[in-house]
């Protein structure tokens, strides 16, 4: 039994990680309110949650959100940092993510046998790395012998610092105390830390989480950098869709950091140092840049003083300045073609404004109507009727939502069909959006499904903590999680047509495709070559 394999083995791409398209959003039909709208209107839902949610902004600027949901004696939390790889300084792509890994390495109290001595040893590691790096980066006069010596010294300094380390003690304490789903993720826009635990460990968690936010120690940094290089190889270098998406974004954006590799370009990632990671921490891990949301079997009145006490130790400081770069208007269509021994694939994207834009909900409507399920236009057109694609969807925002980003479309050709056919068929559907209003039924369906999907997510501690922290960060108020329904309600057919005409124009387009090309024969692959050609 196990997991249902609906759709099963048919088409599964690793690109889920790059672009998992979930339906979401919320809505209530605008003119024809369903019978039960009183219970599921934005205001009614909000009213219910107002009673469960307590927020508190601490003197250091950090925001705490506690949502009481005592269904079982457990809680989930999300720590949401309003900084991600988009904030990596030039030449240091992948830094935010490297810091995220560092945040699991312990603190001054956790993971060390003698912090005072370790601190001295870690300073020596940084000095040794700086000396090695300086020699390594010399374009003229690099001395291989000296480089080797410096590298030896660097390794020796690491070995010395390692003597004080108790590896993985931070995660060990958490897991021994029942932490489940322990992980973190770094996006281009934000960094999140999360796990779930039995409710009687709330205080332990608060101590640990606040400690690692305030007192991160850059231990075992350089081995962890090797680990992250492996992460890059797994997700990007050794994955056809990972490679394609990296090139696609690098081409679509000319100025903004959305075009830069999130995990980091190999040459930069491999030279990030702990000093840089700690500078990132100092700048971005300040109270005003952090929201912590807890959802579950917690009594806000009881626990808030305890949470305040712990999280007050996070350093205060001004909200970091926002970036100045705005992606300039695209005026020329761009195209990437990868020719390799991988089955064909097509993706294209159009620049769109950020989530702050008044039309944000209109993009949600377009996504839903074009992509959501078997009634969607792209499925019916490309998959069901023309029988040229196994999958076809449009989605946004991509690759982030905080800054102007992309509305993208992709299609997976059936055997024997080409990216060119995908492109033409997608454009035909886009043209329909531009020239003809969507139907009343489609618009109502979007609003109904969006609302139902929002509701469905509310019975999940983890998802809820994540959403509350995110909305609090993005809008300064978690209530927007529910109030977005009103923006969705306000979307009209004319809006969809107008936005489609504004955004989906050739000069605003970047496309990327994989064209199958038989590999050049080598000794290693003689056996598999026939197969690759045959599958075309």
């Amino acid at each position: 039994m196990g997991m249902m394999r609906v759709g099963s083995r048919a088409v599964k791409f690793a690109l889920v990680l790059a672009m998992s398209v979930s339906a979401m959003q919320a809505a209530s039909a605008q003119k024809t309110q369903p019978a039960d709208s009183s219970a599921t209107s934005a205001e009614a839902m909000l009213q219910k949650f107002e009673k469960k949610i307590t927020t508190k902004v601490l003197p250091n600027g950090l925001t705490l959100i506690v949502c009481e949901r005592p269904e079982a004696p457990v809680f989930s939390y999300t720590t949401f940092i309003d900084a991600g790889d988009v904030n990596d300084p030039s030449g240091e792509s992948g830094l935010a993510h490297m810091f995220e890994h560092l945040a699991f390495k312990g603190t001054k109290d956790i993971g060390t046998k003698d912090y005072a001595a370790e601190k001295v040893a870690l300073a020596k590691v940084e000095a040794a790395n700086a000396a090695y790096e300086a020699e390594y980066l010399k374009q003229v006069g690099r001395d291989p012998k000296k480089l080797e010596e410096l590298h030896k010294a660097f390794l020796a300094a690491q070995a010395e610092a390692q003597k004080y380390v108790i590896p993985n003690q931070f995660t060990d304490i958490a897991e021994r105390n029942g932490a489940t789903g322990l992980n973190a993720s770094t996006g281009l826009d934000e960094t999140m830390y999360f796990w779930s635990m039995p409710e009687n460990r709330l205080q332990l968690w608060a101590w640990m989480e606040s400690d690692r936010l305030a007192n991160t120690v850059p231990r075992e940094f350089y081995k962890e950098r090797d680990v992250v290089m492996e992460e890059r190889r797994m997700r990007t270098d050794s994955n056809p869709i990972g490679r394609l998406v990296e090139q696609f974004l690098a081409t679509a954006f000319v100025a903004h950091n959305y075009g830069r590799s999130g995990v980091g370009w190999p040459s930069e990632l491999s030279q990030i140092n702990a000093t840089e990671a700690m500078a990132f921490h100092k700048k971005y891990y300040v109270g005003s840049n952090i929201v912590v949301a807890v959802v579950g079997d917690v009594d806000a009145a009881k626990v808030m003083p305890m949470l305040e006490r712990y999280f007050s130790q996070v350093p205060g400081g001004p909200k970091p300045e926002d970036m100045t770069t705005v992606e300039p208007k695209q005026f020329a269509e761009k195209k990437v073609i990868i020719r390799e021994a991988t089955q064909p694939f097509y993706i294209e994207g159009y620049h769109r404004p950020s989530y702050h834009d008044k039309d944000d909900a209109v993009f949600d409507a377009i996504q839903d109507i074009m992509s959501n399920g078997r009634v969607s236009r792209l499925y019916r057109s490309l998959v069901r009727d023309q029988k040229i694609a196994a999958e076809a969807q449009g989605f946004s925002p991509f690759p982030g939502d905080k800054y102007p980003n992309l509305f993208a479309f992709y299609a997976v050709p059936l055997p024997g069909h080409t990216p060119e056919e995908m492109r033409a068929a997608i454009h035909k559907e886009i043209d329909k959006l531009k020239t003809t209003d969507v139907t009343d039924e489609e618009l109502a369906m979007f609003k109904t499904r969006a609302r139902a999907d929002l509701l469905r997510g509310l019975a999940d501690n983890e998802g809820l903590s994540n959403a509350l922290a995110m909305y609090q960060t993005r809008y300064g108020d978690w209530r927007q999680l529910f109030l977005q329904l009103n923006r969705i309600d306000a979307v009209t057919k004319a809006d969809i047509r107008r936005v489609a005409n504004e955004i989906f124009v050739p000069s605003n387009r970047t496309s990327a495709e994989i064209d199958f090309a038989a590999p050049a024969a080598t000794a290693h692959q003689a056996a598999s070559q026939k197969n690759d050609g045959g599958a075309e």
Partner: protein
Amino acid sequence: MNIREQGSGIRDQKNRFRWSVVSDRVRALGRSVALAAVCGLVLSACAAAQEAKPWEKIPVPPLHAFHPQQPQRIELKNGIVLFLQVDHELPFVSGSVLIPGGSRDEDAAKAGLVDLYGMAWRTSGSTTMSGDKMDDLLAEKAAHIETGGDVDSTAVSWNSLSKDSDQVFNLAMDLLFHPKFDEAKLNLAKQQEATGIVRRNDDEGEIAGREARKLIYGADSPYTRQPELSTIGPITVADLQAWHDRTIGGKLIVSVSGDFDPATMEAKLRSVFEKLPMAKPLPPRHDTFNGPTPGVYFINKDDVNQSNIQIVGLGTDRHNPDVPTLSVMNDVLGGGFASRLFQRIRTQLGLAYAVGGGYGFSWDHPGSFRVVVMTKSASTVDATKQAMDVLNGLTTTPFTETELKRAKDNILNSFLFRYDTKDKVLAERVRLEFYGYPADYLETYKAALEKVTVADLNAAAKKYIHTNKLAVLVVGNGSEIKPGLDALNMGAVHPIDITIPMPKHEEAEK
């Protein structure tokens, strides 16, 4: 990004790049073979040296009393079992009918039949409503009805707002009892399946997972045989109908959860299922499981810079009384951050981002033993040797009380996440019913975990860990793997041909 998946979740789930500290892939693997997390080897040496442990001073009060709500179980005279799990938190009702029989029971010459059945059943629709029309009607109500096939079962499931639940239930029952398999929808499903087949060698991880299973169970095993263009081609609408007729009379398990009145729901389910004839159980299976032929296997993929290494053997099933001990052993071996594999290969050596594994146990057949490491091409041999060394260490480096304690803490303190929602409790009960385990399985399992000793662990390692019976599969870039795999000193390297068989040209055209 399966298009048939239900949209769900809250808005934050939007499309972003996410880089995380733990590989989802290995986490998923860890979960499927082990319980939760872990324990460590290196720690034992150091723990004593550390003076202050402030976290131990933080009070851990008794857990709030918790009695997970069990679903109501009703066994009908014909053998069909109903489960009702009321939950009024949100205005939704969902349900499913689980039907015994899955892809392991399909004709080998028609491999892929159950996949196609799972897809085409719903898209075809019923005798009274076409699948397309059903799509429209359900989408308008933000409701879902889906069908699907798995290795040992198929199912129809539904979900809707409570106000629509009667109508959606009736539609689902119509689909269950009066399907009308449609040629065009079968062809659509075949297209999907064919796309998966021709693309199955594009992704390194997919190749490694699939070929590792084939090494463990055999390429022709009902658990691993793969659909080919030649096996799905001849499948007809009549085949789907025959499969349906063959399985629908089995011992169905019907489960409904959410916002409903239990008496009304019971009456409704009885009116539908009570009149069915006596359920016929499937004949017992007599599969043989020999495990892999030991040795080193290699698949070349020249567009990657990382090797996917799978060290594999046969696992066991949950009837085995050693399973609680194996579960603890798995935590020590490869469950989480402090596990021996993670500590050595990732933390200590920086050789991999994704590393993990354990001795697997399935419900009614042997699971797989699997250790996975993904490392840059050049360190393939080194990482493989390190992983083998950790495995050998299970029998040569005795388990310690510290390791035992840590593993038990990990497993037992997170145990309640197996039943912290009403849906999880229901899913567990359905699973136990399906595989014929007692309803209190989790409790007895937990009690057994608590009793595991260091001596048990050492005995289990000796009994179950035989590295000379394991196969090593590497998928990677042969031109970059230096030293080569012969440096493993495990005998000749056997290349595996993963060529996708193509049918005659005229068939491929379609």
